[in-house]
């Protein structure tokens, strides 16, 4: 028997978009998220680069479409703990509010997202230990308070958990260059007298209008970019002493700051790993979902028969890219249900 319903795991922007596009065709969609509300990480972002759109507005708009479409049922506070093949269908085991039940679906979109790298894994930066050291995510959460509190000097440290083999994180997390430029500029706009430094290794702004956005932080907001990875943060005289090398000048330098923001990386989630392995889907060496080669797939987001992915569970991406991938996965699901699955039966 062919079941027609589709399961989307993860109610972040990628999963929301996938659900919206699949349901627009008239199919039944179940959208499940372990949290109490939709929107994933994006609902926590003050604003998104480079247009500075509020993260909550993006989530609100999509949530409204979902609410208005009776074909989408949302299961919050629920997790999928097991996926198994059942003929040409997929059986999902749900755990919600302590109860377990299962349901059969025709296709699944994995949009389980990412975790934020734990800042305290860098003992040298003193996150969780010295007051004044926060992560970029903390900045988004507490933006209002941070912008209000007078600061003489702020330091942004990039690549915290990116491009670091010693931490098992060899890859570039892609978005940190952009969100750091955004936060640095916001801080400087709120407090024009503050001195704001960004310590970077390379500036990777490969997004539409990304380069212009970063240049504007330097040229219009006078953010000082220093090429060098910070070696150490030491609490001293009630402030935070930064030690680093300015690698363009070849000189070790020291400066005192009141606020240190760690641009933490996006890391793969354990839940993605367990779902993927249950279906025999490969992960790359970093723990992200490994797509099948371009030359062998009919849709960019397909992983195996009836299983698709979207968003940062595949690799770090920005909000727009996550939404695009949600749409791409939806197109794949619809095509699969319309043609391939029928052909297979």
């Amino acid at each position, binding site marked *: 028997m062919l079941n027609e319903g589709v399961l989307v795991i993860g109610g972040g922007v990628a999963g929301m978009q996938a659900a919206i596009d699949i349901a627009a065709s008239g199919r039944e969609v179940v959208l499940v998220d372990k949290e109490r509300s939709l929107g994933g990480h994006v609902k926590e972002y003050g604003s998104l680069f480079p247009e500075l759109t509020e993260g909550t507005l993006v989530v609100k708009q999509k949530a409204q479409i979902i609410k208005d479409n009776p074909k989408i049922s949302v299961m919050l506070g629920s997790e999928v703990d097991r996926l198994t093949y059942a003929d040409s269908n997929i059986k999902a085991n749900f755990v919600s509010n302590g109860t377990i039940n299962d349901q059969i679906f025709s296709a699944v979109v994995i949009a389980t997202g990412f975790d934020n790298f734990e800042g305290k894994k*860098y*003992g040298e930066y003193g996150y*969780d*230990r010295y007051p004044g050291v926060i992560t970029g995510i903390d900045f988004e959460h507490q933006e209002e308070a941070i912008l209000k509190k007078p600061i003489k000097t702020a330091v942004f440290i990039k690549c915290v958990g990116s491009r670091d083999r010693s931490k098992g994180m060899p890859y570039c997390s892609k978005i940190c260059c952009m969100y750091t430029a955004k936060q640095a500029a916001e801080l400087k706009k709120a407090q024009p007298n503050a001195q704001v430094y960004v310590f970077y290794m390379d500036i990777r702004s490969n997004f539409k209008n990304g380069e212009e956005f970063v240049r504007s932080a330097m040229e219009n907001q006078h953010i000082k970019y220093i090429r060098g990875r910070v070696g*150490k943060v*030491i609490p*001293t005289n009630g402030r935070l002493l930064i030690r680093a090398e300015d690698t363009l000048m070849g000189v070790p330098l020291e400066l005192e700051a009141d606020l240190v923001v760690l641009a933490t990386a996006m890391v793969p989630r354990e839940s993605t790993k367990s779902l993927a392995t249950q279906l025999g889907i490969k992960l790359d060496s970093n723990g992200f979902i490994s797509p099948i080669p371009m030359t062998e797939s009919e849709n960019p987001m397909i992983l195996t028969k009836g299983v698709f992915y979207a968003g940062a569970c595949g690799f770090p991406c920005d909000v727009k890219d996550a939404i695009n991938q949600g749409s791409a996965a939806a197109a794949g699901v619809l095509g699969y249900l319309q043609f391939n699955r029928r052909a297979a039966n």
Partner: protein
Amino acid sequence: MEEYQKLSLIDPQRVANLPTPDKLFLFLSCTGSIEYPGTERAVRIVGEKLGIEFIESVDQTCCTGYMLTCNAVNPQLALASTSRNLSIPQEMGLDVGVFCNGCYGYLRELAHLLHSNPAFKEVGDKANQALGREKFHGHTKIYHVQELWFRQLEKLTSLVKRPLTGLKIAAHYGCHYLANKDVAIDDAQYPTFHEEIYKALGATPVVYKERRACCGYSVGRGFTHREETVLPHITNKMLSAATAGVQLMTTTCPGCNTALDREQKTITARGNAVSIPVIDLSQLIAFALGAPVEQLGFKANTTPVLPVLERFIK
């Protein structure tokens, strides 16, 4: 003064994985034996209290690490002597306890090189063969005694006879211990387990700005670059400790102890008066556990130790 900030990254699992041996091979340190013999005595005293019997061997030679890192010998000599020295505890079926960061770092690093590079292993094996010794197999474990003390912190706490109430102590962990980041029980960038030991002894841990800074004496720069680099560096370090109100500093390496204790005289003579006694962590523990102070060899110190400890002696 920066308060000692809790939120330690000590890994309880790694601590639990450390053994509580009743017998260990004690690897003797040349610098320790000559500069601060009280350290060796203290290690035995603390070991005895914890039920660890230390066995030594008169056949054990210098670890040769110092000469290697000063580029004063052929590197193969260091590999061969590590292989030979470690074949001694191997023959006894004992793991090794070390009380010098230098010996610890070199033994571990060289044992690792012997183990990971077939060409290096051959140097070691050939040497042992030529001496009629068994090949070093690489299974012998090497511990720094400070780790073993921390493993039994509860027991140590229960044995304290002289609580060091109010004494402001600061740590110098030593680079060659912390460089072994794969084995450290703590975050090598911000270790706190010495501070935990101070607290267990009733003292007040103090964190100072240059706490993670090197002693400056490594690889003989104290001989070749003393004026240019070493003295300015140690001056910075000790002044930052003085500013933080440190009354006593501990080390876990006789080499570091030599640099930080002896050079204070010169630093003071050059106009930066500083007087912070520097002793080994094992000496501090032995003292708190009630060991007779004459047994701890503080006479060897250049910066007098007794003025800060006197009030705890009854």
